[in-house]
């Protein structure tokens, strides 16, 4: 049951972009078309899932026994940076088109606060290994959901007569704000209603 709760929590209730406002840079930057939005979302999901597991292992089997828990932020950033570099190498080799579409935002996952956010949240919430992994994947899927919704909205906005001052990023910000308002409807009561 707690697995379903974690999934719903990180996809809808605590959606990283629309409720916690973490990782907003790619939310505006890569949401111009849905193809690169899906690619970016998948890359972030992958990194978040892997980072959750890796940071969990390092924290519980290295930092805690040595009484070095205060090093968690530094260690996590180091791990995430290394991981992202690795993902970048793999994508560049296997999918040059996706690599070009993601452009500068791929290295920017390194400093994407959503990834660091999930790693620290996992520790704070005292999740076990499986729960951490699931939280990472769910967080990434929530991120992807927000990105896909946004990219579809922006693709439609391109065809609509928008006033010149609002064209492009300004109207995207307004749409993003409205989406965040809509996501406020998901709260803890959703969980109690669903799972009793």
């Amino acid at each position, binding site marked *: 049951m707690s697995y379903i709760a974690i999934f719903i929590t990180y996809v809808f209730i605590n959606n990283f972009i629309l409720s916690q406002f973490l990782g907003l840079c790619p939310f505006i930057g890569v949401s111009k078309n849905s193809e690169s939005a899906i690619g970016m979302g998948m890359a972030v999901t992958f990194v978040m899932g892997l980072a959750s597991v890796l940071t969990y292992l390092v924290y519980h089997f290295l930092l805690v026994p040595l009484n070095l828990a205060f090093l968690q932020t530094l260690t996590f950033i180091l791990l995430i940076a290394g991981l992202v570099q690795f993902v970048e*190498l*793999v994508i560049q080799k296997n999918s040059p088109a996706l690599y070009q579409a993601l452009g500068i935002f791929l290295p920017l996952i390194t400093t994407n606060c959503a990834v660091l956010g999930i790693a620290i949240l996992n520790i704070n919430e005292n999740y076990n290994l499986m729960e951490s992994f699931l939280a990472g994947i769910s967080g990434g899927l929530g991120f992807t959901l927000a990105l896909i919704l946004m990219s579809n909205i922006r693709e439609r906005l391109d065809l609509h007569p928008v006033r010149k001052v609002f064209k492009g990023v300004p109207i995207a910000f307004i749409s993003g704000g409205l989406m965040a308002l809509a996501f406020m409807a998901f709260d803890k009561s959703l969980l109690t209603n669903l799972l009793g």
Partner: protein
Amino acid sequence: MNILFAFLIIAVLGLLLGLALAFAAEKFAVEKDEKAEQILEILPGANCGACGYPGCSGYASALSKREAPNGLCSPGGPKTSALVATILGIEDEGVGERMVAYVHCRGNNELTQRNFKYDGIEECSGAYMLFKGESSCKYGCLHLGSCIQVCPTDAIYRDEKGNVTVEPDKCIGCRKCTLVCPTNVIKMIPARGSHAIACNSFDSGAFVRKVCEVGCIGCKICERKFPDSGCVVENFLATIDYSRPMTQIADAAEACPTKCIVVARQ
């Protein structure tokens, strides 16, 4: 003691990650084409597609493999083609003549009759799908400015009368506007051309006279009275043959009854 551990942990972690990355970089290495990278730096980077390849990087890799002829880059001009030729070690053949886009229409809602009023999305292709646009003339500019949207250098604008106009100095000759225009009213003319025919209608003279005040009626005055103007009339529409001497073009413009031979460039 604790501080030593902290130092060691971070150092060892960093070292391990570094080694893993070095290994991965070796394993997932992408072969890079050095010539293509050099050429990419020289190309203008507008990614306009004038060469027919997907962006500057596509053209650069095709050039380095000698699959594409040099000199297709119209924004870069002769300078770029010369530099590319030195990198590839081939003879520079130049770019050919600089071409700029020109909107061959001066009609608008005051000068040209309308069959109906279009009230759909502001996109020329949308207007064209509905009876080829609202104007009675089906060859002219639709005035919704899809070309303004696609122009990578903002060379196309609306003048004070609302007519869509290309600024020849800003045009890089990428032909994106000619591709997006549903009526093909935008055509390329040589940048040196002083005059152009501001009409694209193949309708008969009587019909053009009826629906538009500034259309070419195909009267052939320019062709017959001014043989050295370069004008050729075919299918009720004058065109300028820019390869011919155009000494009499100014006189022909003066004599044109609907004044549709206009100055394209001062």
